[in-house]
């Protein structure tokens, strides 16, 4: 099978990011510590050019390449663009934090680029092998990034937990994939789908494979009851790494859930729908209820992530194009909100001081009204208060669920969202109605402040925009 130049063109964004990551890895060795910012600028330029290339090579119809292991389609293009955006914002927020703590090394950004490459591979995979390899590439980078601050015991502990549970999840996923290969005789997603369609009724070995695949995916998404690693890793990792883990990889995880469950195992929708219902309801319940008991903001946001994953699963289990679109909108919105919320922790932190307790936000309005307002927008958006974009994301998911006559599920989701609103609004109360214990002015660089403001206003502005087009 000869490889055509056109195939390489389709994968040009991946090739570009890989080439630049290798180049930056080498160039970084020749850059002195005081001009490390050059590495950072090269990484951001790589992201911008990657976005331009992705736009340039997009195709109107889905195209397969490299022996059907790679797919280029609309979903891949959109998700890749958002992955660049969220990753770039994550890198930007990370810089002052790393500089203050002597962690501003080129390797952080190189590992971040490789992690992003893994996400890109996952997003445009059309073969179970590619999905698995992309996932491993992403995970391996994330393990190393969690342990990046080697002198911190909590970081090493978090990395160890993440590594062991991540390896277990990969094992589950691989076992499911191997069973699937045995049952259908192929690992190409399209071939698996047609093999399942050709079979009358679903054989028990396919269900067996499906169970393991769903468990593996749920581990990676952090859905209850496979969520144990999420709070510990979010809490233990350095804040910029938590920001990174909590945002862009969720978009990639959504993509592989779509590719595997919808594109590949779409014929088994009746079987995985029930599994996702259990995962979604448990995630909504556990995430929202346990978050109330947290005093640490990073842990609270970790449980909030779990509840958002529940919402994401609601959209997917609806099993309609509307549901998938709603889930995609939800996960992109969530990534934007998560980046902003963790960015606020970085904004309030300074060398030797982590502002990751709820108490650290006490009286923020008196110290800096503008950023208190930004945090208010982000929290309202996570809680789903109109007119922020979080409200419209929740609304579209609920509409999709009601359309397929699962009204009870929508009621459960609303019920737990109301419970969840308590802990988001409690933070707003702490910021606005409690007197500050720490009067020091915020010390942070103007770039961080500007992007955080844009981030917060985007969450509000997109919500108003959705309001205008829906009314």
């Amino acid at each position, binding site marked *: 099978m000869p*490889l055509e130049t056109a195939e390489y063109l389709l994968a040009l964004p991946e090739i570009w990011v890989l080439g630049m990551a290798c180049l930056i890895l080498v160039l970084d060795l020749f850059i002195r510590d005081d001009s490390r910012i050059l590495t950072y600028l090269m990484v951001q330029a790589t992201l911008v050019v990657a976005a331009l290339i992705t736009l340039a090579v997009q195709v109107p119809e889905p195209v397969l390449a*490299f022996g059907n292991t790679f797919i280029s389609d609309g979903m891949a293009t959109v998700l890749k663009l958002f992955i660049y955006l969220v990753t770039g914002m994550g890198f930007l927020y990370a810089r002052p934090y790393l500089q203050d703590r002597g962690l501003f090394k080129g390797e952080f950004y190189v590992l971040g680029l490789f992690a992003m*490459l893994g996400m890109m591979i996952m997003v445009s995979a059309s073969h179970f092998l590619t999905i698995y390899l992309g996932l491993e590439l992403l995970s391996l980078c994330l393990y190393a990034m969690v342990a*990046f601050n080697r002198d911190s015991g909590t970081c090493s502990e978090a990395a160890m937990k993440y590594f062991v549970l991540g390896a277990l999840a990969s094992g589950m996923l691989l076992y499911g994939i191997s069973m699937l290969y045995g049952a259908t005789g192929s690992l190409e997603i399209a071939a698996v789908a047609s093999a399942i369609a050709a079979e009358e009724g679903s*054989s028990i070995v396919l269900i*067996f494979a499906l169970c393991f695949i769903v468990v593996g995916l749920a581990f990676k998404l952090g859905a209850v009851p496979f969520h144990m690693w999420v709070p510990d890793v979010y809490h233990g990792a350095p804040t910029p790494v938590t920001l990174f883990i909590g945002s862009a990889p969720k978009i990639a995880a959504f993509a592989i859930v779509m590719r595997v469950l919808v594109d590949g195992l779409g014929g088994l929708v009746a079987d995985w729908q029930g599994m996702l219902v259990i995962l979604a309801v448990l995630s909504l319940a556990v995430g929202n209820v346990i978050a109330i008991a947290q005093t640490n903001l990073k842990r609270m946001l970790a449980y909030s992530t779990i509840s958002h994953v529940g919402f994401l699963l609601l959209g997917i289990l609806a099993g309609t194009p509307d549901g998938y679109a709603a889930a995609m909108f939800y996960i992109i919105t969530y990534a934007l909100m998560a980046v902003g919320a963790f960015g606020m922790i970085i904004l309030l932190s300074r060398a030797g001081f982590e502002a990751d307790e709820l108490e650290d936000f006490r009286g923020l309005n008196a110290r800096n009204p503008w950023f208190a307002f930004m945090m208010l927008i982000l929290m309202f958006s996570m809680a789903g208060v109109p007119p922020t974009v979080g409200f419209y994301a929740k609304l579209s998911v609920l509409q999709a669920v009601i359309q397929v006559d699962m009204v009870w599920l929508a009621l459960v989701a609303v019920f737990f969202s109301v419970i969840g609103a308590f802990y988001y609004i409690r933070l707003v109360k702490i910021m606005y109605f409690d007197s500050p214990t720490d009067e020091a002015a915020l010390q942070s660089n103007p770039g961080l402040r500007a992007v955080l403001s844009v981030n917060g206003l985007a969450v509000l502005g997109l919500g108003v925009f959705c309001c205008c087009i829906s009314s």
Partner: protein
Amino acid sequence: MSFERIIFYAFAAILVYAAGRVVTARNPVHAALHLVLAFFTCAGLWLLLEAEFLAIVLVLVYVGAVMVLFLFVVMMLDINSAPLREGFIRYLPVGLAVAALMLFEMVAIVGVRYFGPEQVAIPARHPEGYSNTAELGRVLYTDYVYPFEIAAVILLVAIIAAIVLTMRRRPETKYQDPAKQVQARKADRLRVVKMSAEKKQ
């Protein structure tokens, strides 16, 4: 019974025995050596399946590199395995029950019913002169070139991550600088003190 089948059962028996000894051997070095035996017999089984390239790679990579390093580490670390074995008898019944249940469940679902000779055709014998290595290479560099490249990137990331996590200056470690050591002169280390004789008290 054909000779090939006799070889298969002999290798399979040795493999099961070696794998069992890996878990039960008291001495970690013995366990590691049994693992080497397990890999060797596994390679033999693969040869029977006409997968000669994979068999040789298994011996070269796992026996030649991985297990040697593993043995090295086992010998360097003084692992006292006695505490690890406490309660072995106590937990044995529960462990056996769970293992038997899982085995039963797995066999019930993924038994010969789905993967037996009726479902999956027995692979045909390849003609003489068929090169397994060439076939693997051909598939690896054409159909699977994209996953192959990703695997290469994963290995690169593993190298970077290992270096990032281990190469750092630690102020508390003491290390020698041989260059400074050989440059030391007598005057740096020895101070001759002149003092006048004193009367014994």
